């Protein structure tokens, strides 16, 4: 019994605890760094559904979201943005900003069925968002202008992985002075 106690006493508990704490802290630090980058700098999102056809696929597209410009107020009409749905705060949706505050927006009330259109002036601090596919999108035409504060990010790149792959696989990237490779590359790109 005393041998067991001596052996237990011989284990460097203090060092083990210190080591464990520093490892856990390292992991926590990494998690925090990921959170901060994800929430305030740049993140990725998977976009699905028909409302942004043809800019984004029906079956799902990975998009890169820029969080900085949304926070600094650098979103302008024409940008595709990620925003918290005003109808369900747990849902994020992707739409295109069509009008900023003070703009007059004209839209078809019931596209495909009638030609009736309506014009609305966007109030202060709000934006008018619409899906690119006006026939299958629930957007400002139903729920009205949304407060700018709901915008969580601006989409700056669709399929970042594919774009990077195409950019890197373009032969000019590796062989800037080899004309025959450029010729080949163009062929490949056309084929794609």
């Amino acid at each position, binding site marked *: 019994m005393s041998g067991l106690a001596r052996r237990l006493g011989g284990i460097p508990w203090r060092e083990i605890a210190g080591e464990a704490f520093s490892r856990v802290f390292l992991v926590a630090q990494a998690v*925090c760094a990921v959170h901060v980058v994800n929430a305030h700098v740049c993140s990725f999102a998977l976009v699905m559904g028909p409302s942004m056809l043809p800019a984004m696929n029906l079956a799902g597209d990975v998009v890169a979201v820029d969080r900085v410009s949304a926070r600094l107020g650098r979103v302008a009409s024409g940008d595709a943005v990620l925003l*918290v*749905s005003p109808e*369900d705060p747990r849902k994020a949706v992707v739409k295109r900003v069509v009008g900023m505050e003070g703009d007059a927006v004209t839209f078809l009330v019931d596209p495909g069925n009638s030609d009736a259109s309506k014009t609305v002036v966007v109030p202060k601090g*709000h934006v008018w968002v619409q899906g690119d596919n006006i026939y299958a999108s629930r957007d400002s035409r139903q729920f009205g202008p949304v407060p700018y504060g709901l915008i969580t990010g601006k989409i700056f790149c669709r399929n970042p992985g594919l774009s990077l792959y195409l950019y890197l696989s373009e032969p000019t990237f590796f062989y800037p002075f080899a004309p025959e490779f450029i010729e080949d590359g163009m062929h490949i790109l056309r084929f794609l």
Partner: protein
Amino acid sequence: MGTRNHLWLAAKRTLTWYLVGFTISDRYATVVSVTGDSMHPTFTAASSSLRGDVVLAERSCLQKYQFSHGDVVLFKCPSDHRELFVKRLIALPGEWMQLPGTPDIIKIPEGHCWVEGDNAACSWDSRSFGPIPLGLIKGRVTHVIWPPSKIGRVDTKMPENRISPL
């Protein structure tokens, strides 16, 4: 070489604690200073942020967006996304509510809520800008932590007979 090493270490440590603090304030709880007189009996009416109350706002309620009547919430102003407001939550999505001062009864749309200041006489709230989307809410105020005379929980209280039991 020694001083450069020291500087590098200090910078690394600062960055680490900054990241950790930022994450905690984003996900769990944050500290905000409240100014203005719209919440007067609950928080001190103060014009500068030095004399205002400092409050603790929890963020974990944002995971599920479950609030109850009478909660004091922190939200982005619907007409200016840079401003944060503190008001009391009066009505939740889908409820019928009587507009103050009128016999009208309105239904709060899905995903929206109705917020009002405690000091009805000088408060700019849902009575002027209507129901706000829940997505604008950035936290729930739970405690006052400064000045020392007011330290304690912020109680949830509700004006009587506002929500119609329809």
